[in-house]
């Protein structure tokens, strides 16, 4: 286990020897304390928790479902029955927004998990094994960076047209791992030459065990931060596709489809049909970015926040 010396200056109690378990817990507590100092990050965390609660308990606030049409009340304003009003087909915008949020949040969390995981494995493998592994993975990374990912997702969209929306998750993840993987590779290259990794290698510890036990914990900060920021990026990508009609399609709804539906009213007196779902999307991304930046500052005090990609 390594103890990362953190040159903070404000918190003298951070650098502790002691048994391994307590340093791990101590580091978590230290990161949490640093995170708490960043007011925007805390606000982002609180906001995201509230948004999650809203997305999962919101449906019980209204008797309307996302697919329902209220043909007697089309294009009505926000009121006691339809909180966010209804569109021209009588869809309840509140129900649509809430269930779209739930889908978008789920997709964001899963895509980020998949792409960050893949980036972690590929990046560490490329740097640790070197040689052909490195050549092939770096070349693949370059190739995927050259392929215009949004265009490619649109091109491949007929494949998941009739399929379950779950297919969208690996598709978006496929075009989302490259930058993280590059950063991970760079960090692994330096960690690989550290004494404890060499010692483990000379003791005959299997390669993947070294990666799991010694390398991943040392690059975990970048993985955690990238996971957070990837959640936001994935939600934006999914909504982008759905907005253009190439992602989630009816009868399923996501924030992208709801915003697209509402955007036709942006130039009319029913502009709130656009404003409600759009502001929820903005709030989600805003909270995620605040948390991501707060985590970066808390995990890596030397970062200036500039290299925010």
């Amino acid at each position, binding site marked *: 286990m390594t103890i990362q010396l953190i040159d903070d200056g404000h918190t003298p109690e951070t650098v502790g020897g002691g048994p391994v378990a307590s340093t791990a817990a101590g580091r978590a507590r230290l990161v949490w304390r640093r995170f708490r100092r960043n007011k925007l990050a805390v606000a982002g965390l609180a906001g995201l928790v509230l948004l999650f609660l809203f997305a999962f308990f919101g449906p019980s606030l209204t008797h309307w479902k996302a697919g329902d049409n209220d043909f007697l009340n089309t294009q009505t304003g926000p009121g006691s029955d339809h909180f966010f009003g209804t569109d021209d087909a009588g869809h309840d915008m509140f129900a649509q927004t809430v269930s779209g949020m739930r889908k978008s949040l789920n997709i964001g969390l899963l895509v980020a998990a998949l792409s960050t995981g893949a980036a972690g494995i590929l990046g560490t493998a490329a740097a640790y094994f070197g040689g052909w592994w490195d050549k092939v993975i770096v070349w693949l990374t370059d190739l995927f960076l*050259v392929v*215009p990912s949004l265009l490619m997702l649109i091109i491949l*969209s007929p494949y998941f047209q009739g399929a379950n929306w779950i297919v969208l998750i690996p598709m978006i993840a496929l075009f989302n791992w490259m930058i993280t993987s590059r950063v991970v590779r760079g960090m692994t290259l330096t960690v690989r030459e550290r004494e404890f990794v060499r010692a483990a290698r000379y003791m005959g510890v299997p390669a993947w065990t070294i990666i799991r036990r010694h390398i991943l914990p040392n690059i975990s900060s970048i993985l955690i931060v990238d996971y957070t920021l990837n959640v936001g990026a994935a939600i934006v990508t999914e909504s982008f596709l759905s907005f*253009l009609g190439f992602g989630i399609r009816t009868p399923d709804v996501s924030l992208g489809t709801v*915003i697209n539906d509402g955007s036709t009213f*942006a130039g009319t007196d029913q502009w709130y049909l656009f404003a409600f779902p*759009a502001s929820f999307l903005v709030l989600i991304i805003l909270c995620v970015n605040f948390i991501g930046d707060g985590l970066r500052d808390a995990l890596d005090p030397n970062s200036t926040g500039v290299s925010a990609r």
Partner: protein
Amino acid sequence: MGAFIVRRLLNYAVLVFIATSLAYLGAATAFHPKDMYLHKNPPAPAVVMYRELDERDSNPDKPVFERYAHWVDGVAHGDFGKTWDLDSVSKHFSISVWVTVRLVSVAAVLSAVLGVLIGSFQAVRQYKVSDHSITFASYVIFAMPVFVLAPFLKLIAVQVNKAVGGDTPLLQYQGEIDPNATGFFGQLFSRADHLLLPTISLSLGLIAFYSRYQRGTMLDVMGSDFLRTARAKGLRKGRAILKHGVRTAVIPVMTLVTYSTITTFAGAIITERVFGWNGLGSWFTDATNHADVNSVAMITLFSAVLVLIAGMLSDVITAVLDPRVRL
């Protein structure tokens, strides 16, 4: 340096070829070009359908690789095939690409200049109220994807027009130019009016991005010895910062600017669609909806080439500007 560039270029050329081939093969297997003919009312006769599909080199009954080989052969001879309405892809491209150029170029220059200036301003006044509020504003802009920003601008334009009143709306948000505009200045004004909202929609995100980066590089420069020397020589503060500070800090940002500018050409899909410009982005989505493999492959090829030019250009710019880099 020459050998390095040639090797780099070769590697890039291979990547472009593979990327475009992937796009072609992906589109050729994913699209259902027959649907367009079968869903017509009345459905097109089979003879007509197969004749047109063969002319487009998109007959799904032929093996994919046969179509692909035919397409590659055509491209090698400068023939990019036919679009879904049997128009020449090259002709369509040469029209669309200029629409996109007219749309993007103002936004590209504007966002680079404003981004660098705002970022430097923030760094000079670090932790002041202005710095904090600009940082917060850029957070909000980062959280606003174009598909939220563009309709939002439309919303504002409609409300402004309503408040101002008058016969012709003040802010235009549909198309490139008013067909009724007459005279040189009338047309110029109409063009500028139509360009205003899409330009804001394209550049806000870029400004936020550049300014954040410039703020960081500028902060590194602010405490440096050469800036103090410049002041000690007797240069006034503003002049020292502009001549010695910004000029040094802008080097890393410039590579970012090249990259983002060039990728914006292919990334203006939403802005083009929302504001009704018939550029490359609109063409791409239309082509996908019409199962048009040739157009899609052409646009992908173009954008892959652009990414590579950006990569080469930023390498060269760094090498030229930064004496520590040797090629």
